[in-house]
């Protein structure tokens, strides 16, 4: 892939981000609800005191002025103060982002490990019992609400068996020196295998809750694309050459069949990186999903704006990564 193509892709981000900023800003401006009223809650407050808070939040300016100030500051890397945390939005998001990314990556790996072998076997042994089980399983995986499944896991593994911790990212015995922000990595860097296992025990249930519906979708995609590829001429040719079945499936068919899987996995990963409010709430997982949903309910405008921009960047970059993977999987694809 050429450097100029890469640059072009990155430059393409600018109009996307600008467009997203305008849309988000408009939506926020049109949404009823006043963060100052929410912040003051049940209290006596004089009009002057309310005005002082509105001034602090910049709400005494016109929408146009607010938008221009936001753009100007954002270009300089300043996304303003979170109304309720009263700290820079960037700091608030950065604290919570690693938890979401870590959970997403672990869920993605779990989902792929479950989905790809199952999808391949279901396709190769079409209409066998294993295919039927996989198909019914994937239907369940897609239909079960994550909230319910998470609570079920908690009640069984957390309360009934007492095997797994119910909430949080790691136990509280000691401070974990943050290097990457990913506890599974940081504990290993610190040379503390026991803490690593602790972090792994904490991430298992939330990751599984996110991974199962994703695995269900990926399994179906892999299965159907595998079925299609298995009917292709070059697969028949490979078989005719006298290659073993395992080699035909593993080398010739699977590589091509995975292209749609990669696309779907990238999209799913994108939505997971936005943070999953429900799973984060159920498992007390300190990611950005919960943070952003709370920000919307509280009309915490700066935090909403910055996080939506973050989502936009994430999606664009993930699509880019998926494109790169196509090239690796199929040399005929050019960027």
């Amino acid at each position, binding site marked *: 892939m050429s450097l100029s193509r890469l640059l072009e892709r990155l430059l393409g981000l600018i109009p996307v981000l600008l467009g997203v900023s305008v849309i988000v800003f408009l939506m926020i401006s049109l949404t009823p609800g006043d963060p100052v009223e929410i912040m003051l809650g049940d209290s006596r407050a004089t009009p002057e005191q309310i005005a002082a808070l509105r001034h*602090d939040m910049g709400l005494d300016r016109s929408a146009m002025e607010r938008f221009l100030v936001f753009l100007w500051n954002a270009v300089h890397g300043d996304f303003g103060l979170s109304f309720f945390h009263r700290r820079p939005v960037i700091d608030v998001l950065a604290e919570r982002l690693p938890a979401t990314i870590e959970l997403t990556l672990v869920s993605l790996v779990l989902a792929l490990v479950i989905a790809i072998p199952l999808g391949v076997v279901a396709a190769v042994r079409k209409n066998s019992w294993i295919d039927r089980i996989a198909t019914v399983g994937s239907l369940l995986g897609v239909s079960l609400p994550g909230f319910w499944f998470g609570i079920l896991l908690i009640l069984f593994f957390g309360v009934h068996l007492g095997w797994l911790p119910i909430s949080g990212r790691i136990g*509280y015995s000691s401070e974990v020196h943050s290097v990457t922000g990913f506890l599974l990595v940081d504990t290993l860097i610190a040379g503390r295998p026991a803490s690593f296992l*602790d972090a792994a025990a904490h991430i298992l249930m939330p990751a599984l809750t996110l991974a199962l519906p994703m695995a269900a979708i990926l399994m179906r995609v892999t299965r159907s694309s595998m079925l299609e590829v298995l009917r292709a001429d070059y697969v028949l040719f490979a078989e005719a050459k006298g290659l073993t079945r395992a080699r035909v499936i593993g080398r010739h068919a699977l590589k091509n069949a995975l292209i749609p899987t990669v696309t779907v996995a990238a999209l799913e990963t994108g939505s997971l990186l936005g943070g999953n409010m429900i799973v984060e709430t159920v498992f007390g997982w300190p990611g950005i999903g919960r943070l952003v949903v709370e920000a919307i309910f509280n009309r915490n405008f700066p935090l909403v704006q910055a996080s939506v921009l973050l989502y936009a960047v994430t999606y664009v970059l993930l699509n880019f990564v998926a494109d790169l993977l196509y090239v690796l999987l199929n040399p005929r694809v050019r960027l």
Partner: protein
Amino acid sequence: MTVNRSRRRLAIVIASTAMIGSFAVPGIASELRVGFSQDGQTLDPANHRNRETETILRNMCDGLLTRDASMKVVPEIAESYRQVDPQTWEFKIRDGVRFHSGTPLTATDVKFTFDRLTKESALGGQTSPRKSLLGPLAGVDVVDARTVRFRLSAPWAILPAMLPFQELVSKDFVEKNGDAALATKEDCAGPFKLVEWRRGDAVIMERDPNYYGGATDIPPVGPAKVDRVIFKIIPENASRVAALLAGEVDIVNELPASAIKQVEASDRAKVMSVNGTRTFFLSINGAKKPFDDIRVRKALNHAVDRKLIIDKILAGRATPLNGVMSPDAFGFAADLPEYAYDPALAKKLLADAGHPNGLELTIDTTAAFKPTAEAIAAIMARSGIKANVQIWEGAVLSPMWAAADKRKDRDLYLASWGNGALDPADIMVPTLKTGGRGNSAGYSNAEVDKLLDAAETEVDQAERADMYRKAQKQVNADAPWVFLWLPQDLYGVSKRLKGWQPSADSRINLHDASVD
């Protein structure tokens, strides 16, 4: 036997530590965990308006005054206080109090704390959102190292009731580290000091061995009992209850009424409750016909069976009210007449008001109170009132009902108002005085306004209580609301927890708590 048991326990500790790292922590004698519904927003006591943030902070940061279990205001870092004249209060500060950093706490720190709270742009350019909690406080003067005087721009009898909401911070710390540093660090003078705040996950604190001991009126005085305290953030109700039942936490707040049976059935935990401070009511839009007719408003009051709803929906955990004040509050009028549930009387009142065929109306509320609103609607049907329930987002609903022009087409609003100060000044003035911030009913009675204004500056407490009682009586007679109830705050508590009880101001003070 004892040896055996402790050996077995030791084995379990070692095994579990090896297996999952850090659940039971060797070297730490006692640890108490609170499963808490929300994370703190900041650690700066001056820069938030959030009850949960205050609950967490209050374990690290003491104030001049606090409240005992019966909600009586008592000195904490103050040694004593007195009213010098109607607009001046004097506070004597205890000797030998130190911040967690070791810096002595003096009158200068008290002045600094309250300057941050009341002066414009005092928080590194921002104005404290808590300023409005300090009413007419004009300034604090240092008399000597251990004495300060609070200057008011008008007499304000509830200053002592409002001071437990403010915690003292170190001037030295803020000047060295800046206001922004207080958002994530603390240098206070409370029983616990901050170890680590894992944002969104947990606030970890440890006992300050040099703690001055806390309020002398609230024994035992001395350092905290447990070595460590963790506020573990678990927003989901079901998960919080599960954590309690699994023994992961020792206290959970906001126990849903639906989980009472489950907790009571467990051999590990029990339910504890206390009267809350939040008054629930149905605000009636008095400016709209036919609700401007007192007979209609009285009919609505007689059409709601409060006891049934309390029993069936709130698991019996609420006190029915005939007015606005909590029975625990200053100036509570105990003798208000009750609007007893009486569908026949409600029908008659409606017929008298010209509605023999009943009424049709809409109750506005938020999703959290949908079951309650629907129950009210169903019960009203028996009095010939067809009530529809409309669910709104809180951020939209309360501003809509706060503005007369926006609520002009609305009928009823299932609302509530908190009164952490347990004083009528903090709830009657905003919700029932003409033009008050929370006066969603648009209630306006010159007599009530006059009483509320006079009580505001009255220095004689008996006189003041009397004025508020008269005002409550008038409000009861005018029926601007359908009076409902005061729910209890419910907690799930581990049976190994000792020395802790829930507090009506919804603080979770862990100074005296210990675990077996």
